[in-house]
């Protein structure tokens, strides 16, 4: 057999062969179950708000606020990271992942102070999400205004 160190190509083939395959099926199953579970909690809160007479859009806002609050609290207690290790995208893709992405860096940079440390680093990940989300929504609004 050729020496795997010969070229970058053969080397990367060699590494691919030796490194264990990530168990993608199990990961997907865990993400499915936990992601579905988080959405179902949201749906329960939604039904509860509806039964109290709130309209659909207000109920959706309440669902977001409660799920974000729970996720922020669990991240602060260092429980969310343990769930996240098992769930992968299952806890990342729901709105809980957005809350987690705000609290995690904020705790990590706490030693830099409450204003520039916590207040500033909160948006390391959430900042780009808001920048792209809000900018895209402005573009959608403009397109709708001028072309529809």
């Amino acid at each position, binding site marked *: 057999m050729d020496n795997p160190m010969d070229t970058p190509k053969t080397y990367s083939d060699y590494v691919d062969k030796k490194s264990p395959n990530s168990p*993608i099926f199990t990961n997907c199953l865990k993400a499915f179950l936990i992601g*579905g579970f988080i959405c179902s909690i949201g749906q329960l809160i*939604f039904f509860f708000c509806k039964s109290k007479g709130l309209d659909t859009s207000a109920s959706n806002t309440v669902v977001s606020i409660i799920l974000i609050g729970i996720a922020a609290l669990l991240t*602060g207690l260092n429980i969310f990271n343990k769930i996240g290790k098992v769930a*992968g995208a299952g806890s990342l893709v729901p709105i809980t992942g957005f809350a987690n992405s705000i609290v995690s860096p904020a705790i990590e940079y706490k030693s830099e102070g409450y204003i520039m440390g916590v207040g500033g680093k909160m948006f390391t990940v959430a900042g*780009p999400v808001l920048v792209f989300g809000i900018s*895209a929504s402005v573009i*959608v609004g*403009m397109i*709708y205004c001028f072309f529809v």
Partner: protein
Amino acid sequence: MEFFQTIDWSLMLRCFIVGGLICVIGQILIDKTKLTSARILVLFVTLGVILGGLGLYQYVIDFAGCGATVPLTGFGANLAKGAITEVQNSGLLGAFVGGVKVAAGGIAAAIFFGYLASIMAKPKIKKQ
């Protein structure tokens, strides 16, 4: 409990399945493409804005309820829907006002609870 009798269990099931499947798409992206989680979040929100802007995401919401609104694609679709509704009411100004207006509750909650949880938490020492 009166409340449990009002629950639509079929919607509950659809919510679980669709919400789970959206997370599976994210998991496949993580495992297959080595995208960082920050990029996944940005990708999902932007995708949600595009699908919401085209009006396609509303079908998913009608079918799956919170299974579609809780994932970040729903956050994005909500931004787009808000921008469009506000444009209908107040013209071009609405493009700037509408998105953040509908998402305001979520964003403010994330900032407030996020800050509160951060100042209460102890910075963890990484175990080697």
